[in-house]
């Protein structure tokens, strides 16, 4: 420990801006989201929703595009009780009011999962969530009214009755 209790503090910040191309695979995926369509692809004998630019096992490029109605299964989830502040999470303005649920969703026939919000009329009451939300639960996407070609064109996933 420094022998001085009250050393002076100096603050600074970096304002870095970034812009990247989404490339072919994610561009097509995002464009279709705008049309309320969820596409994936096939690499070797495995299928992926969302699509992958290539298979990391076979190192092959995808052989075909696939489409899904977006129904799937909850693999894991968390109920977020603490609001993210705007410093910690610059996109915090797009987050729902707390508490909210983020799920890990395995779209049917996909080898990988999608992370997204869980919500809907069935899940109005947060008191019921710890009982209601279980791994293995069936869900489907609910689309945003306004879509701009991002993953948030899906508003959330809701339970399938």
């Amino acid at each position, binding site marked *: 420990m420094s022998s001085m209790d009250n050393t002076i503090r100096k603050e600074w910040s970096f304002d870095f801006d970034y812009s990247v191309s989404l490339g072919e695979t994610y561009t097509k995926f995002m464009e279709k989201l705008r049309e309320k369509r969820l596409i994936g692809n096939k690499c070797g004998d495995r299928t992926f929703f969302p699509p992958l630019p290539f298979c990391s096992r076979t190192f092959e490029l995808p052989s075909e595009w696939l489409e899904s109605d977006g129904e799937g299964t909850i693999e894991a989830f968390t109920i977020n009780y603490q609001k993210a502040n705007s410093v910690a999470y610059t996109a915090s303005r797009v987050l729902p009011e707390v508490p909210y649920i983020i799920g890990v969703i395995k779209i049917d026939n996909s080898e990988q999962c999608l*992370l997204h919000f869980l919500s809907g009329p069935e899940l109005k009451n947060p008191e019921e969530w710890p009982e209601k939300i279980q791994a293995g639960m069936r869900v489907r996407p609910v689309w945003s009214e306004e879509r701009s070609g991002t993953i948030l064109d899906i508003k959330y996933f809701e339970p399938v009755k």
Partner: protein
Amino acid sequence: MARGVAVIGVGNTTYTSAKRENRERSELGRACVKSALDFIGRGLTLSDLDAIYFASVDAFEGIQRPERSIDCFGQSFGTPVYSVNTGGTAGGSAFKDAFHAVAAGLYDIVLVYGSSTTGATVEAQQILNSASPPLIEKPCGAGAIHMAAYYLTRYQSEHEITAEDFALVAAKNHKHAVNNPYAHMRKGYTTEEILTSPVVCSPIHLYELCPVSSGSACLVIASEDRARELCDTPVWIKAFGSITNSFLVGYRDFSGLPMLKMLAERIYKMAGIKNPLEEIDYAEVFNPFAGFEYLEYEALGFCGQGEAPRLTREGVTDQGGKLPVNLSGSTLCTNSGISASLTRHSETCLQLMGKIEGGRQVKNARVGLAHSWGGNMCQFHTLAILSR
């Protein structure tokens, strides 16, 4: 044939919260390295170091290439400096790379420095969240704690693990941190206090979550000849390896830690370990979220799937048990970013050297295990088997 390599010195600073830190980064660096040189004694000086392996993550420190910024890392003696960055794993990774360099005969005496990474941050989560996959995962609010929570809710649903089970292992860490002079959170929270602390993201309570700490750690390693000459209690590196997982979290299987299991199998084979619970005397595992200690017990083969809470309940992994784990309070109680992945190794070395303070010394510990992970949530693991 590679040479024998041993840890001959451990350096530490005290730890505090990032917000209360009153030491400048080079003051911390100097104090930490000096404590390692004093630990070794025998006239060893900065000029005797053949290379420096520096572990950090640039964005956390607020300066590009932070290894350049402290004038005891090679600047005065023309010593080569290597920067290793595997996110939170980097302390383990830098140690592993330094070990390989000495084993290969490149250098005789090397310093590994685990930087006080999060000490400069105003809001550490701001940087942590920038590690999430930006195109399809980060927009849905997935930060480090959410990714951690997925593994733990999955573990709960597969094995009927309760909130009490998680609190129990958190309490074990808090209890021992009280007696660790190098721990940051030394509050000794009990199971009851942990269970009544707020849930941040289910199932993780506030006291099952690491603090943002400031402080640094270092190790000095040496080739077999130099180690015997400079140290009465060298700790030999028997096996050391690392493994890599996907960047997209959605690509992972949240059922346990299969990559760590695969790594453990490789490392145990290298070290000739057949029954880890019987053959390992002390372990430090990486647990910024307390429940991960259970996933790690199972991946490391200390017990079967879903059996880890029983080991804790029966005291098997507590002081006096068959395989004490994390008697430092581990990452749960002290997480200054990258140095927290090196303190898993430094604590294990101190246990094997018989130099642990605070009544936490394990008697006759001969074989130790040290583990770290990071990247974005278990993207990388490192695992070391150390022995006296």
